[in-house]
């Protein structure tokens, strides 16, 4: 009778390819990622719109958040809509300095493409948004975007 003869010890086969897949994932996330920005201190629920366009260059955008403060700040700042620039509550008058600082951080060639992205809660009143718009006009930051959620 013929018998199969095992030669040598039993070996685990080597898994060599999994690292490539992981690397691919890694690169995907590295390319698509955008670092989480500063902490949000106002709660923003964006309004809905169907005709939204994507922001092409995220790195050229500055963000103005408008909305009621989140729960842990409400004791201090109340529930009225506030403006958040970078990491703190600001008033309309601070927008000028904010825009100037954002401009300075950009390269000369990119400054004209700067977009100010207004992230406002859907329940804020237009008064505060109008004030922001007027201030932006005064600083001649004319390219703006009203952030909205896409719906069909």
């Amino acid at each position, binding site marked *: 009778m013929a018998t199969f003869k095992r030669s040598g010890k039993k070996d685990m086969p080597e898994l060599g390819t999994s690292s490539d897949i992981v690397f691919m994932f890694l690169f995907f*996330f590295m390319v698509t990622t*955008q670092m989480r920005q500063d902490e949000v201190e106002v709660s923003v629920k964006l309004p809905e*719109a169907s005709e939204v366009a994507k*922001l092409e260059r995220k790195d050229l955008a500055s963000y103005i958040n408008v909305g009621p403060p989140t729960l842990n700040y409400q004791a201090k700042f109340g529930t009225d809509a506030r403006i958040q620039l970078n990491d703190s509550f600001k008033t309309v008058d601070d927008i000028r300095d904010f825009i100037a600082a954002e401009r300075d951080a950009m390269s000369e060639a990119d400054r004209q493409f700067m977009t100010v992205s207004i992230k406002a809660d859907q329940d804020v009143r*237009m008064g505060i948004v109008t004030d922001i718009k007027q201030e932006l006009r005064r600083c001649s930051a*004319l390219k*703006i975007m009203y952030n909205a*959620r896409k719906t069909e």
Partner: protein
Amino acid sequence: MSKRKTPGLNTQSTADIAFLLLCYFLMVSTMDQQSGLQRRLPPMPEKDQKVDDQKVNRRNIIIVKINSADRILAGSEPIDISQLKDKVKEFLTNPTDDPNLPEKEPKNIEGFRADYPVSKGVISLQNDRGTSYRAYIAVQNELVKAVNELRNEFGMQYFGKPFAKLTEEQQDIAKAAVPQNISEAEPKDVGKR
């Protein structure tokens, strides 16, 4: 003479390192898309510049007002938001050459036609300080939708494709033929009318 085989490099740990990096990027990444309605604000008038009201013919302008109770007034009549788009489309196309609707001006569009009639209509959007942002964006959205639909129709008529499928030059032509003239007026209180 026996052949010497170069020993394989030990690469098992790279997978672990890659995993760690992967986890890091998974944690810190935000996948939310930044999307919204893009607008260009009019520049602030110079201080010494005289405020000369630009002579825009009455028929070429439609005033859309939103009051503090989020009700909409288009032209002179109150209107529901669902009808706004069609109203604006009719205003921009003026299919019957109504003398109360905007006139058209033959314009030379490069690479297309020398005398395409382009509407001179301007949509002026006014709001109250008490208008909710949600209503404002909804109206802006309807206005943009009207323009986008007209561009789509233009694309279908002359190139047989919707706007999004046109080439870049064709899109420029469509944009020139159907301009998006939405003016966000100087703030003024519309009140509760």
